[in-house]
């Protein structure tokens, strides 16, 4: 953690304090009188020349008296938002300055809730004066860092955040008093000269006029010590100590109002973000319209496909009511049905059986065949008839008949022969195999 230097540049005196760290005890301090009409930059130069060498690279905070600033005020405005105040803060500051225009001012402000509207604490300095102070710091302490530049009352108020009692002190030609009003801290600062008693009397008078009980207030002057930031410090060093405990973002800081001050990330990219957002919105709308166009095209295609589907339906299922999106399914069902029907209709034909028998049978004249009856089914049948008796072998014709039938690829015949007078009665039992299996007789042949 870097060392800290707090500098106060007030109406009749200047002071600085050196701290080893933020919130630490004062390790070195000095106060000096201010010459009349001495420019504040010269005053700062004189102060910085007295800084001990070991603090040359410290962080510096400067508190400037209200009289050396363009504006340091706290007032209520009827606006309801910080954004609205931000828009008119230049005008507000300008109207409270002696001669500077809004364009010439480095401004910082803070808002707090105050009744109907908002309370504004504003601090402003001319850019010229701000630049002069920064140059002095750069020249005198090139290794130090200027982290805060504010007014004395603002710096002191930031050191009184946790202090409940009212404080009134006068030092360095200025008087300051703070009190709490309805829980809101209030402050006043004004020039005050005179002896210590006169100053105290005047402070008491002002406190009484402001409705503050004197018993509850701390009143001190010049070299008298008061309790401030957990240490006893002379009134003339209060402002410098308060400045030393400031950080760059803890209170109003005029460095933020400088022309070259870095702006916050949000304010820097706000416009870019808005433009990017608008561009994105336009892009998304165009994209949406493009999707809509595609959707319409797809719908058109769907309609044309539906027409084709209806046409195909009429061709495939004439007379059957059209069912949307069901063509493919119906066709699959039909194919399945046709396949199953074909499978169910695959049985041997008795006519084929008969044809096989006719082809296998020897000529009737050769065997003297006379049919009595024929019964044929799909897988077998019976034939009964008579054949002529053979000359040498009585059953030769009957055997020839059986043998011939058995020679047919799809037939198996079992015959029963009976000799009756000059004829042989033959009873044939036939089996028919229309489609040959790999082990069947037909397949073996």
């Amino acid at each position, binding site marked *: 953690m870097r060392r800290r230097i707090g500098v106060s540049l007030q109406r009749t005196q200047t002071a600085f304090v050196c701290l080893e760290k933020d919130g630490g005890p004062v390790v070195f301090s000095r106060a000096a009188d201010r010459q009349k009409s001495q420019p504040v930059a010269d005053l700062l130069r004189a102060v910085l020349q007295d800084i001990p060498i070991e603090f040359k690279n410290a962080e510096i905070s400067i508190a400037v008296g209200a009289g050396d600033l363009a504006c340091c005020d706290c007032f209520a405005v009827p606006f309801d938002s910080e954004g609205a105040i931000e828009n008119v803060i230049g005008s507000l500051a300008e109207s409270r300055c002696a001669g500077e225009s809004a364009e010439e001012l480095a401004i910082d402000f803070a808002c707090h809730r105050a009744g109907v509207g908002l309370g504004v604490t504003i601090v402003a300095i001319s850019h010229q004066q701000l630049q002069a102070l920064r140059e002095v710091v750069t020249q005198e302490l090139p290794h130090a860092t200027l982290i805060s530049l504010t007014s004395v009352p603002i710096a002191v108020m930031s050191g009184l955040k946790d202090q409940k009692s009212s404080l009134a002190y006068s030092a360095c030609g200025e008087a300051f008093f703070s009190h709490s009003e309805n829980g809101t801290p209030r402050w006043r600062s004004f020039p005050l000269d005179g002896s210590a008693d006169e100053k105290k009397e005047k402070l008491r008078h002002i406190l009484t006029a402001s409705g503050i009980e004197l018993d509850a207030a701390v009143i001190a002057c010049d070299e008298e010590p008061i309790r401030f930031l957990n240490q006893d410090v002379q009134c003339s060093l209060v402002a410098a100590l308060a400045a030393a405990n400031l950080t760059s973002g803890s209170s109003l800081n005029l460095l933020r109002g400088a022309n070259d001050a870095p702006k916050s990330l949000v304010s820097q990219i706000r416009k870019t973000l808005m433009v990017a957002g608008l561009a994105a919105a336009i892009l998304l709308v165009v994209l949406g319209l493009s*999707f809509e166009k595609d959707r319409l095209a797809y719908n058109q295609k769907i309609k044309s496909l539906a027409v084709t589907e209806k046409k195909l339906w009429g061709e495939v299922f004439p007379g059957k009511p059209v069912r949307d999106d069901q063509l493919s399914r119906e066709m699959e069902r039909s194919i399945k049905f046709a396949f199953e029907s074909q499978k169910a209709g695959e049985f041997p034909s008795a006519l084929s059986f008969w044809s096989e028998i006719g082809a296998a049978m020897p000529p009737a004249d050769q065997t003297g065949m006379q049919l009595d009856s024929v019964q044929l089914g799909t897988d077998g049948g019976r034939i009964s008839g008579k054949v002529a008796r053979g000359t040498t072998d009585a059953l030769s014709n009957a055997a020839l008949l059986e043998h011939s039938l058995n020679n047919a690829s799809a037939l198996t015949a079992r015959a029963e022969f009976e000799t009756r007078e000059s004829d042989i009665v033959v009873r044939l039992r036939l089996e028919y195999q229309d489609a040959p299996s790999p082990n069947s007789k037909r397949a073996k042949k």
Partner: protein
Amino acid sequence: MNRIALGGLATIILVACATVFAAFKYVAMADARAQMELKSGQLENAKAMLQKNRGAFAGGGQNFTPAALKNLVQQSSAQHGVTIIYLNDNEKEIGEKVHECNVVWRAVNVKHSNLVLHLADLEARAGGAKIREIRLKPSPFISDVYAEAETVLTARRATLQEPAKGVQ
């Protein structure tokens, strides 16, 4: 609320609305595209099925009812000089999902050649129906003539679809 904040808020709302608009349109487009692809695919599939299985659909095959089969038997018998003295039909379910339709007829004094031609003609014209039984009693007096010929013509079909009297 100042103009900058209002502008920022308006921008955010605009972007959100545009996003929702684009998202809805995309979903609608994707839905339409999926429907189109599905329908297109189904139609392509249907066309391919029609090419491969034209015979399986109406118009590609014959549809016989028992009455039609009987009519066919009568026509064929008259054509081939077969005298029918008895003609009947019956239907039954055989096994699961198979429907059978039978036409039984008896002819007398029919020549062998005429009977064979008659039966062959029936099998050719009956759209898958087949002769299931043949009972013949040859004439003891005339050669190549059957005194009595009883025949059964059978058509079988699956019953996957709604029940119909037709035989496909």
